[in-house]
Each structure stands twice: as structure tokens, then as C-alpha cells.
């Protein structure tokens, strides 16, 4: 089963960036082998690209879940435009977090040095696992893929019974 892993790294060797510091995510694709397939830029202008998405979402190929996320996204940006919507320091994280989260929502998990509570919650909603670890990319990916391989083989054996 192919899946993608998003990694926050500046030097391409260590997981050395916090989630908020990442300017481009390294996207690894795991099939039979592990390949770095993409460097995905985080758009620092917050709501712009998501807004264009949501205007033409009805006849787009977007799935339901992305529609929903766009909607909540709008609600948050609307809210924060006149007031910080959730009342705590970062609002509900709409300013900087949501674009980063949506950007890598096709990945199975995200690996960064640190990931804040609000971002973790957003990933949780999308069933994306968060690994905040201080280690090398190589080590992280090896351990994560070994773990997923075990889970996936178990699922398959269950189905076959």
C-alpha cells in the first residue's frame, strides 16, 4: 500500500524543524521503496489559496472531507478577521496552522521536531498521525515504515480470514 510521509527538515538529514518553522515539507512516498518525491512549499499568505479552492469546490474533484475542511477554514478566517475567534493566543490556529495542515492532508503522517497542540488537534481531525521527534529523517522513516508495515499486514490477514 502506497502512502506519503511529510517531514519538516531544513538540511534534509535531520528532523530539525518545528511545524510552524517549515517553509517546505519533504514529501516521501512509500511503496516497496522509500522515495523523496516532492518538496512542497508552505504558502505563507494564509487564506488566499484555500479561498480560491472553496469558490469552485462544487464542481471540482475535491472529496467531501476537503470541502468540509475548507468550510471550517473559511469560518475560522472569517472569525479571525474581526476578532480572534477562540480567544486564546493563536485563535484556533487559523492564521498559520490550517494552510499547513491542509497542504499535507494527503499524507499518512507528519514528522517534525515539535508540533503545537492546536496543530496536533487539526491533524487528529483528519486522522493524520503526528510524530514530534528529535532524530534523523532516516531513523524516523525506518521506524515509522516498519510500524505501518506491521499494522497493514495485520489488517490484511484479518481480511483474509
Amino acid at each position, binding site marked *: 500500500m502506497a502512502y506519503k510521509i511529510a517531514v519538516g527538515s531544513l538540511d534534509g538529514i535531520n528532523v530539525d524543524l518545528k511545524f510552524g518553522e517549515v517553509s517546505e515539507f519533504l514529501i516521501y512516498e512509500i511503496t516497496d521503496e522509500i522515495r523523496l518525491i516532492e518538496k512542497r512549499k508552505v504558502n505563507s499568505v494564509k487564506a488566499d489559496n484555500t479561498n480560491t479552492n472553496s469558490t469552485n469546490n462544487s464542481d471540482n474533484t475535491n472529496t467531501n472531507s476537503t470541502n468540509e475542511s475548507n468550510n471550517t477554514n473559511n469560518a475560522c478566517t472569517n472569525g479571525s478577521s474581526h476578532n480572534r475567534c477562540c480567544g486564546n493566543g493563536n485563535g484556533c490556529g487559523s492564521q498559520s496552522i490550517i494552510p499547513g495542515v491542509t497542504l499535507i492532508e494527503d499524507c499518512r503522517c507528519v514528522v517534525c521536531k515539535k508540533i503545537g497542540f492546536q496543530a496536533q488537534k487539526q491533524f487528529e481531525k483528519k486522522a493524520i*498521525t*503526528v*510524530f*514530534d*521527534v528529535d*532524530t534523523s529523517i532516516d531513523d*524516523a522513516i525506518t*521506524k*515509522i515504515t516498519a*510500524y505501518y508495515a506491521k499494522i497493514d499486514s495485520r489488517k490484511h490477514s484479518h481480511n483474509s480470514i
Partner: protein
Amino acid sequence: MAKLLDRQRYKCALGAMQTVQAIERALPVLNSGPGCAQKLSDSTGSSGYFSPNIFPCTSINEKDVVFGGVKKLDSTIANSLKVIDADMYVVLTGCIPEIVGDDTGEVVSRFNDADKPVIYAPTAGFKGNNYKGHEQVIDAIIDQYLTPSDDKQDGLINIFADVPYQDLFWLGNIRELERLIKELGLTPNTIFGYRRGIDNINKIPHAKYNLLVSPWVGINNMKKMEKKLGIPYLHYKTLPIGATETSRFLRTVGEFAGVSNEKVESVIKEHEDYYYYLIERYADLFLENRVINKQFSVVADAHYALAITRFLVNDLGLVPAKQFITDDTPKNMRDDIVKEFNKLNYGLAADVSFETDTYKIHEAIREHDYHGYPLILGGYYEKELTEELKGNFLNISWPVQDKVVFDSFYAGYAGGIRLIEDIYTVAVSRFN
């Protein structure tokens, strides 16, 4: 083939956090997923200075499964030592860290030099139930905390009996056993409950004898203490309830600990006189055969199933139907326990079934002819069944939902009277 187990009467080994909690000022530090303590805690009598809702926990999550949770455990222990004032810290491992392979023992050993003792017990759920977990905690104390002593105190005797919290009457029972042992002129030492705690744990190696009152739980602890601390043990399999068993208990302990015969008999006589005075006063109630049921079944762990069966047969003269032992007794202990059920007065023997599945227990009770309405002493699961069979029901084993027990007890002479009161209260209220 996957099997379903219907309403079992035990929890996973991590349930032994309640054994730790029963030791005053001992703190369980859980190396487990978040929510384990919440699910395992009984809401009855478990609040206080430490309670399951505030036990420190590593809250292992997916990240720790992939990358190992050792660092988190280290910081959880270190911070527990800083923030929580306890006398002993007992790290208990749940399933996840043991499946992943985290070396809890190694992490705990880093705290050997801490001001307070830090020990650990492997209590992963797949290793067994909370009866087994209870043994693991006591084992951990023996292995990692206690050291042998040549300074033996005359007459000092350690008593281990019920599994705290799993057994509703644990506190009252252990206190009553203490009182009885004291009357023989011995000095009892127990570690659970009010004002026992670490001081009494420290006394364990100075004892001359160990006394285990339990069919099987704790026998491995006794063997371990005999080997490591050189304390010989007496394994008394039946919790003494009522005059017949309690007198036998006192004679056995007296003989084991070298108490003079006259002393033992004088203690027994005093208790028995009062006991039978009470029984005599209510003889008319006992002889009124419409009141009480002809046959009974006990559905409980081996501890209570054995104790109550022997009491109801030997003291009250009731006839045993099938008895159900629900604690998943280890297979190698079962034959010995069955033998105890066969040594009843009047040449009676009770049929015993080791069964953890409530559905099967209920089917067996339904099928049996009780020659009238049955008397069922069991967990709350039996309440509805007994109502359906129009029988009499008393909740004596886990789960307990229809009574509150602070420190009352069924052990000893007085406990026997309490149990008769409880049973006959149910029986007579039927007619009123």
C-alpha cells in the same frame, strides 16, 4: 476461532494499581495508555490522598509505540518524585510498553538512588488478570525493596489475605484476622489499609512467620519470601467465616506458631460461647424452614466461593448446589481447591465449576433443580437472574452495585454472624 467472554469478574493485571493504592502513601506510577486507570478504578472507596484520577501516567500514544516511550517514563518518574509526596513509588506497566519492548526495569533502576523507593511490577494485561497483578506487586516489593533480616521479632506474623478493592470486604476482613491473631498472643503485621503502609512493609523481614489466608492468590509470594527472607509460611486455604472454620483456623495457626493449647482453646471458647448464644436465640428462625432456601450456589472468586460454601454447609447446614469460581484460577491450583470443597461436614461434597463466562454460569443455574427457589450469593450480575428465578440474592463478590461497604467484614466469628444477618435479612424481607 475467536471466542466471546461474557461479563468476566476480573480486570487486567494493571488493576493491581488498587493493591498499591491500598498501601497507605504508596503511589502507582502508570506506564500505560491514557484512560487505563479511569477504566480500572472502582468508584467505591478509592478516593483520598491518591486516587486513580490523579495517578501519574505516561499516557503512551502512537508516537511512543513507534519511537519507544522510555524518555517519557523517565521524566514521569522523575517528576512524580519531585511533585508528589509519597512513601513508595510503584511503576506499573500496561500492555503497550511491554508489547513494544520498552525496558521499564532499566528505567526504574536509574532511580535506585532516589530518596524514596521506586520499584516496578510488570502488569501487562496479557500476562493475566488483577489477581495475578496483585501477586506481581507483592513480588516486586519482595524482590526490589525488602532485604533479609536476622533480627526476628518473637511472635511477629505477617498476614496476607484478600485482594484489596477486588474484594469488597478486604479492609474489614484483614482487621478481623489481625484481632483474632492478636488474641492468640501473637503480633500481626499487615500492609494494607489505615496506618499500615511503609512502616509495616519494613517489618515484614523481621517476622517469624507468614500467614496466607487465600486458596491460591499470593502463594507464589509466600514461596518467594521463604526463599529470599527465610520466613516459613502457613497456607490456610479458606477464609474463616463462622465458628466451625474460625476455630479450626485458630487451632491451625496456634499449632504452627507454637501457641499453647490452653491459650488457643480459651480464646475459642470465649468466642464460641457468644457465637452460639446468638445462634440459639435465633434458632426458631433457622428452624422455620419456609424462610430459608434448601440449596444455594456461590458465584465468586475462589476465596469467597470456598469460604462461604464451607460456612453455609458447616455452620448453617444448607445443601450446596453447584459452586462457581470466577477468578480464572491457575490450572495447577484447581485440584487442591476442589479437595477443599469435598471436605465438608456431614460427609457432604460440593460440585465446583471453574467458569469465567457469566452466560454459561447463568445457564447452569437455570438448569439446576434447587428444590424450591434458590439462594444465590454472587456478583451483581446474578441479581436479575435470581429475580427471574424468584430466589434470594446477596451481593458478596465483584461487581458490587447494591451496597456500600466501609469496613464491615465476613471473616471470623463476628463476620459469620454478619453474613447470617445479611442472608436472613434478604430471606425474611421476602415475606414482609
